[in-house]
């Protein structure tokens, strides 16, 4: 599997981040000037994926606090006083936006945070969720490609359905995230602007390499076979990027419990069309997915990471590791289903 060595690399890199700086090629090229004995810039990320990006871009010049940690569920998070304290002391707050962190406005207000807010998803082409979610194979017609829609992504009236917040699932968007983070850090800490920009560029080049590798992997699989079932509707951007059809069992959030009719529909779709595998997400009960697998004889594909990274010592402990893990699992199952 071509992703194995990639995962190992990310795992190794993770340790180096803790020791000194990420062991990317850019680090040797990182400018030595501007290195001052002053304390690193205190920054806060709303959840683990943004936290990892922030560490990658900010390097040793930032001290990152992540509000919703590893394997945490952003959808049902309740802030604690510790989070408000971290936010109060921070100079920069990086958030996903797209109505993902619904609890954030109140936390920001309560904490008295006066620093700079960085909207990581600023400028990504926003995907819309169908108002009627997930029916009959979930057509991908809900992606208005307004690449130049800087800032006005929240609710442009003509769109149908809510914005899908899981934009980081596409590496193309990940690159936009990295640039936004670098720009935000530079505004808060102009003296290190060049440092952040160069780190972001090296990060983006690694994303691009991974993106190409994944693209090549999926290109080898016939398009009609790229059809899988997931526990929740979190992989729309990933599916759009690589031409994979994700059929969600329940709706977008973890709260929704499916009806017997929903489950029956999924079983029928699976029986009638070529679904290659069923995947669950980290931190969900696998019972429903297993039920469908038992009912239809389709492969259980294992765990995909959607909204939160795994622990640091696991392959999906970083953003790049997570994307390559997800792609690796999918490729493995799609290839197996073809045989």
């Amino acid at each position: 599997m071509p992703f194995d060595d990639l995962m190992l690399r990310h795992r190794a890199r993770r340790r180096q981040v803790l020791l000194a700086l990420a062991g990317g090629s850019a680090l040797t090229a990182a400018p030595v000037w501007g290195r001052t004995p002053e304390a690193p810039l205190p920054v806060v990320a709303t959840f683990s994926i943004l936290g990892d990006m922030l560490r990658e871009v900010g390097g040793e010049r930032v001290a990152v606090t992540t509000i919703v940690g590893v394997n945490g569920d952003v959808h049902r998070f309740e802030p604690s006083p510790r989070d408000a304290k971290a936010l109060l002391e921070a100079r920069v707050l990086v958030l996903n936006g797209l109505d993902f962190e619904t609890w954030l406005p109140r936390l920001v207000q309560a904490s008295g945070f006066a620093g700079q807010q960085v909207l990581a998803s600023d400028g990504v082409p926003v995907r819309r969720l169908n108002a009627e979610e997930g029916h009959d194979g979930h057509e991908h017609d809900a992606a208005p490609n307004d690449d130049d829609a800087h800032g006005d992504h929240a609710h442009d009236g003509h769109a149908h359905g809510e914005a899908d917040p899981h934009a980081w699932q596409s590496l193309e968007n990940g690159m936009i995230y990295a640039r936004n983070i670098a720009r935000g850090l530079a505004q808060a800490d102009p003296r290190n602007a060049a440092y952040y920009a160069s780190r972001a560029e090296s990060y983006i080049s690694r994303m691009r390499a991974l993106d190409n590798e994944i693209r090549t992997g999926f290109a080898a699989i016939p398009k009609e076979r790229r059809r899988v079932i997931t526990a929740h509707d979190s992989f729309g951007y990933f599916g759009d990027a690589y031409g994979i059809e994700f059929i969600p069992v329940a709706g977008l959030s973890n709260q929704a419990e499916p009806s017997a009719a929903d489950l029956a529909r999924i079983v029928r779709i699976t029986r009638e069309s070529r679904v290659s595998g069923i995947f669950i997400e980290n931190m969900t009960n696998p019972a429903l997915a297993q039920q469908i697998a038992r009912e239809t004889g389709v492969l259980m594909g294992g765990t995909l990471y959607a909204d939160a990274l795994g622990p640091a010592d696991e392959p999906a402990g970083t953003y790049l590791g997570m994307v390559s893990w997800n792609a690796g699992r999918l490729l493995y199952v799609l290839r197996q289903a073809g045989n």
Partner: protein
Amino acid sequence: MNGIELLYMPFAEFGFMRRALAGSVALALAAGPLGVFLILRRMSLMGDAMAHAILPGVAVGFLTAGLSLTAMTIGGMLTGLLVAMLAAGVARLTPQREDASFAAFYLVSLGVGVLLISLRGSNMDLIHVLFGSVLGLDDGALILVSVTASVSLLVLAVIFRPLVMECLDPLFLRSESRMGPVVHALFLLLLVMTLVAGFQVLGTLMVVGIMMLPAAAARFWVVSVAGQMALAAWLGAIASYAGLLFSYYANVPASPAIILCAGIVYFVSVTTGPQGGLWQVARQARARRLRLSRIPERD
């Protein structure tokens, strides 16, 4: 498809519907009778509280064995038992009543649980991960719920007489035998076992609902405790079947559908039940008024 086929087709076509029916009927048969006793003891809200009280055990199970449903269930069951026994002990040894001591212990337990989880620096919703769905029953879950239900029913049958006495007239039982505390403890054991196994297999709403609603409804039809238990069990089973069909045809989530069906049974019982139902109460009141108005006034 004719009318009769509509009633069984979903179960014939889909394995998950058959599993859901088997699991919820098994649960209903055991939970209904237990619910009757909970109502007798005025502890109707205990099931819901128990769903929170098991959190520390679930958290310890998770912290030691990772995301293993078995470890989390065993942990939950032990904590549930501990909370129930402590609460019962306080109720026996002090003047405080069982509902109050239970509320106190379950809140402490919930606090400990939330604390344990946050020690790990995670806000992960363990309870949500642990609690199952009626549509997701696998073989293990079905065996767990049916074994629990069978054991519950058998033990209930054995301790039936002393338990009824313990609920209705504990002082009499105390004067007659020393079985009181034993019976009480056995009952709590059955209750915690059924609740926790049910949570893991079917989810909180489903278990607590199928335990309390049919039991509350049965009270309006029969007087005897044994009759109420039998009726509660069957009302629960019927509500499960109707709810699954409702969920299938109306495209609504399964456990709320089952609970709503049980709720309809309850409302019908409250209004038309012959043992103190609203309609009967109104009729009796009218009869009393008529009777009183016919009494000739003196002077």
